[in-house]
């Protein structure tokens, strides 16, 4: 859509191209972050904190750049992404199926709902030692731990989405002779899609966080391992470069999720609302 934006006072109207407006808006929203980063650099340069506890931002950026150019950070990002996304997609498949099954089947709801309620508040990462015991120290326990963490929010979102459909739509479809299977795929799932996708979006950063934490606990490669080793070798700059890499990865994940949401729900009222 090619919409120009009027940003001037009445009587002095001029049009700003949308791209420029978006750039200005991003710049405006970045001001608090830039102030924080400037304060970080100033505080460390002034010697107000020990450099081991908080190295200057400029040095962290230099390390981040060097480790990115030599392929270290990209390698660890790929390792973490493989772990996090494998677990995430496993959880997405299981969570959507279980949530939908709970919505349409009373016996399944009876069996699964208490388990989901019980599992929701538990800090699931505390199961990691058990997962190591059962599945060893390779990639499998990490992937399963990510899946275990992500499946609950996805299941809940799918269940709530599928249950909250306007009953008049269902009645109308049934009265027109729609079969149960078709009803589920053509009515229930599309109507529940915004909530299902919300659940998937909530679970995505969790997948990244849990993936990194499991790497910190079990070794191997990945951002978690990259950071924990740096900390153990008193190398704060590398540890902070790892945080930066995590931040960049998380932002990319969230941006991709937002784009997918827009595309999948382009038919939905929320897309029309902008």
């Amino acid at each position, binding site marked *: 859509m090619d919409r120009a934006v009027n940003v001037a006072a009445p009587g002095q109207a001029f049009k700003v191209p949308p791209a420029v407006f978006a750039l200005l808006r991003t710049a405006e929203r970045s001001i608090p972050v830039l102030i924080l980063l400037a304060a970080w650099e100033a505080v460390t340069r002034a010697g107000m904190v*020990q*450099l*081991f*506890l908080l190295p200057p931002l400029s040095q962290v950026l230099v390390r981040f750049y060097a480790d990115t150019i030599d392929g270290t950070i990209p390698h660890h990002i790929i390792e973490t992404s493989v772990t996090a996304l494998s677990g995430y997609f496993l959880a997405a498949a299981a969570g959507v199926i279980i949530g939908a099954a709970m919505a349409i089947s009373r016996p399944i709801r009876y069996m699964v709902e208490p388990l989901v309620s019980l599992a929701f508040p538990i800090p699931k990462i505390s199961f990691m030692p058990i997962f*190591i*015991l059962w599945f*060893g*120290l390779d990639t499998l326990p990490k992937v399963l731990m990510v899946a275990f963490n992500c499946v609950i929010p996805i299941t809940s979102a799918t269940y709530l989405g599928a249950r909250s459909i306007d009953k008049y739509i269902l009645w109308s479809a049934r009265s027109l002779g729609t079969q149960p299977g078709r009803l589920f795929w053509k009515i229930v799932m599309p109507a529940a899609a915004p909530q299902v996708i919300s659940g998937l979006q909530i679970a995505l950063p969790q997948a990244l966080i849990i993936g990194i934490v499991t790497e910190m*606990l*079990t*070794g*191997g*490669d990945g951002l978690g391992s990259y950071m*924990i*080793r740096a*900390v*153990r*070798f*008193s*190398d*704060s700059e590398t540890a902070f470069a790892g945080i930066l890499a995590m931040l960049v990865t998380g932002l990319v994940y969230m941006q991709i999720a937002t784009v997918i949401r827009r595309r999948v729900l382009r038919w939905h009222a929320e897309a029309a609302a902008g």
Partner: protein
Amino acid sequence: MSVISNIMPAGRRLRVEAACLLAVGALFAASVAPVKGEPTKIRIGYDTIPLHIVPVIFRMPELQKHNGKEYALEFFRFKGSPLQVQALAANEVDIAALAFSTFATSITTAKLPIKGIADLAQDGPWYSQAFAVKKDSPITKVEDLKGKTLAINAFGGATDMAARVMMVKHGLTPDKDVRIIEASFGAMPAMVRSGKVDVASFPAPVWSVHSKAGDLRTLFRQSDALGDQQFLLYAAKDEFIKKNRKALVAFYEDYLRGLKAVVDPKNRQKVLETISKVAGSPVKNFEDWALLEGKDYYHSPDGKINVKALQSNIKSLKDLGLLKQTLEVVPHIDHSLLDEAAKRL
């Protein structure tokens, strides 16, 4: 309008308010300032007992003259020495138990203004940490570790470094050829026996108990990698040493007296009972090895760091590319506390 302003003239009210503020300030200052004559608090990091013998010595009040008078101790347990570097930097401990490797990185990488002030334990002269596999494991030499998993207690610590040195010496690249993971020493026997890891490191307390079953086999020792090592040493910030010299000398006077007493055979039963209490493990787990020559780690009787071994250990790590920078250790060692303490005995 408040009640006070109604009943008191403005000038007098200001004086009363100022007096109240001063009183509150004085109370606050009194609450945070150390009381005159109060012993200096010394916070010490430790890990496996009785490798870290200091918490044992200071659980035996009859061995101490100055504890509770000139200084008061507080012990904090850590898993491995690398975490103690962070605690030292954040002023969460005053004396940290550092490995030769973390001592080097805390000065060269973390730029901490610290000094090594005393020996804690040496690996090699008596016991040397074992890296063991299952007895029936196909791993018979270091080269066989390619593609296998090895467990250490903390990345960057002495045990990790010894394992890495051994790998490099045998043509393996740590982390690429061999997966290295962190685990607690207590969990390692079970991890090896269940096949979760192929090889693990066993400090004396764990090895003495678990080697008896006969199902574990030593692949190599830490001393095979690095010779005699200044395995662990005590380090403190320069500023802390300067400010609390008197208390530290008193502490080391008690330490040297205690160290002599705990290795004295006539105190053995009492010492074993104390070790058992501090470690939370039965006496039988310690009686045939703890503090015995050749079976436990060596503790220097004069409390001094083996500077030659320490320098050699750090040089080996640098030569093999496991440390970015080397360190000339002599300027970073301060034995003056021990010298003064020894004179007072």
